[in-house]
């Protein structure tokens, strides 16, 4: 059983901000990652502040300019079947549908998914690594088959969020409410890198709450998809997840966004691969070249060089779907 904590079900966002500003308070969205972390004693909390009753954080809405907003407390299952999301942003619906199991998707929220802790079997054990105030990365020195091939150091755990990379491909923005007001930031600015901040994964400070996600309007033709590779098909975290969104103009790629999950301590953008695609017509040769560029700068550890080939394969395969 988990250690004791006090509990508040906030009735409003203002109340949640106030309550979660307390020392060692933790926000409860769907609770799937929170309860796992508390059981495994990855961190402790004195107080849980639930935001599950705050209506303004729920639901998906379209705006007149064609953009869409998803409240932070919208479940992954709701996103996966939303007709607007499926039609305009298939990459996001596919990512939502690839998270966990049906039960997890009915409970897990997009906000919680973006704020989940990293996946590393050392971090999620009772070992005291860099992220828990220790002085070593057990992944770097130990069994590293599920660790980072990009952006590692000092921590080499991977960011597992499928939703984060889909949102990165879509150039989404996130809204944050906090004690000092509201702000909106690009999704890439939401995550922090372990060489600058080690004890958290996002920019959120005490009392700040992710309230929603904005998806920019789709202009012209956009093609997008998510491909998740995992050790078993039924459910698992990504060994490599590839989110691609292409803006096309008469068959020519105007802008490309490619983001990778499960390969770096934060959602990883494959900028070199994007450049390969931009200005080109998609064909098999371009897909191969982009796949090659997607692993630019990869520095595999002892046991995870296979991820380099896996990323290449998944990028190539996903781009090839778009050949018309």
């Amino acid at each position, binding site marked *: *059983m*988990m*250690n*004791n*904590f*006090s*509990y*508040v*079900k906030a*009735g409003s966002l203002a109340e949640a901000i106030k309550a979660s500003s307390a020392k060692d308070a933790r926000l*409860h969205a769907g*609770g*799937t990652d929170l*309860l*796992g972390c*508390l*059981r495994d004693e990855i961190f402790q909390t*004195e*107080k*849980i502040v*639930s935001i*599950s009753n705050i209506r303004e954080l729920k639901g998906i809405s379209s705006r007149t300019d064609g953009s869409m907003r998803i409240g932070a407390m919208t479940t992954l*299952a709701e996103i996966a079947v939303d007709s607007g999301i499926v039609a305009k942003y298939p990459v996001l619906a596919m990512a939502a549908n690839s998270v*966990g*199991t*049906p*039960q*997890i998707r*009915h*409970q897990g929220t997009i906000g919680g998914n973006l704020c989940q802790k990293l996946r590393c079997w050392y971090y999620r054990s009772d070992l005291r690594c860099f992220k828990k105030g220790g002085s070593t990365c057990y992944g770097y020195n130990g069994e590293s088959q599920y660790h980072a091939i990009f952006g590692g150091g000092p921590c080499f755990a991977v960011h597992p969020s499928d939703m984060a990379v889909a949102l990165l491909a879509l150039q989404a923005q996130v809204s944050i409410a906090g004690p000092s007001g509201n702000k909106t930031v690009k999704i890439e600015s939401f995550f922090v890198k372990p060489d600058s901040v080690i004890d958290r994964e996002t920019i959120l400070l005490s009392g700040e709450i992710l309230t929603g996600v904005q998806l920019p309007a789709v202009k012209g033709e956009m093609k997008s998809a998510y491909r998740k590779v995992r050790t078993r098909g*039924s*459910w698992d975290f990504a060994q490599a997840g590839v989110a691609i969104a292409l803006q096309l103009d008469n068959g020519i790629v105007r802008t490309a966004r490619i983001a990778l999950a499960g390969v770096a301590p934060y959602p990883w953008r494959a900028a070199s691969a994007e450049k390969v695609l931009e200005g080109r017509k998609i064909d098999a040769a371009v897909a191969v070249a982009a796949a090659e560029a997607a692993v630019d700068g990869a520095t595999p550890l002892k046991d995870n060089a296979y991820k380099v080939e896996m990323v290449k394969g998944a990028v190539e395969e996903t781009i090839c779907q778009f050949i018309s």
Partner: protein
Amino acid sequence: MAEERDDSPGSTPGLTRRGFLSSVSAGAVVAVSLKDAPPAAAQEIEATGSTVTVSLHVNGATRKVLVEPRWTLAYVLREVLGLTGTKIGCERGECGACTVLIDGRPRYSCMTLAVEAEGHEITTVEGLLEGERLGPVQQAFLEEDAFQCGFCTPGQIMAVEGLLRVNPSPTMDQIRTAVSGNLCRCGAYTNIFSAAAKAAELRKQKGGA
């Protein structure tokens, strides 16, 4: 109209398989009459380890219970309400043995705090009984021999029930996806899939009758 009843202290079982009660203060679970309890609006527990009254809608009945905020729905269903059909397997949201329906959707009750389940409609495997007769999904599991040891069965049944409520005529792929969050260590998957298909038929027959 929901039935109302009190849960007497006598219904609280003793030691659990995992020895949970060693860390739970005795007498934390007491009977509370509906008249005594304030309406369940904002829940706030200021002192760590203290309890709060929650009103849970389980299988059509309203059950008032005192819970600690750290107690999961799975724990409360089994150890407080005595609904032991819901099983606790991995207790980390991976095996699916604790699956119940919350507002008609399958969820892991081991990953849901009881305080979070307040105000929602909870259905456990016991709630699928029609009087003393098995419900169609339960009957289908029996007829198709869809279990060996039976430990995962209540969770499998609830996952299938959740599927059929939104999709009465699922394809085999949809069935496989629907029970993908429920592990069966005996490997009875083939018969579980057949039982899900059979359950869809039985439900339709019943609907048509």
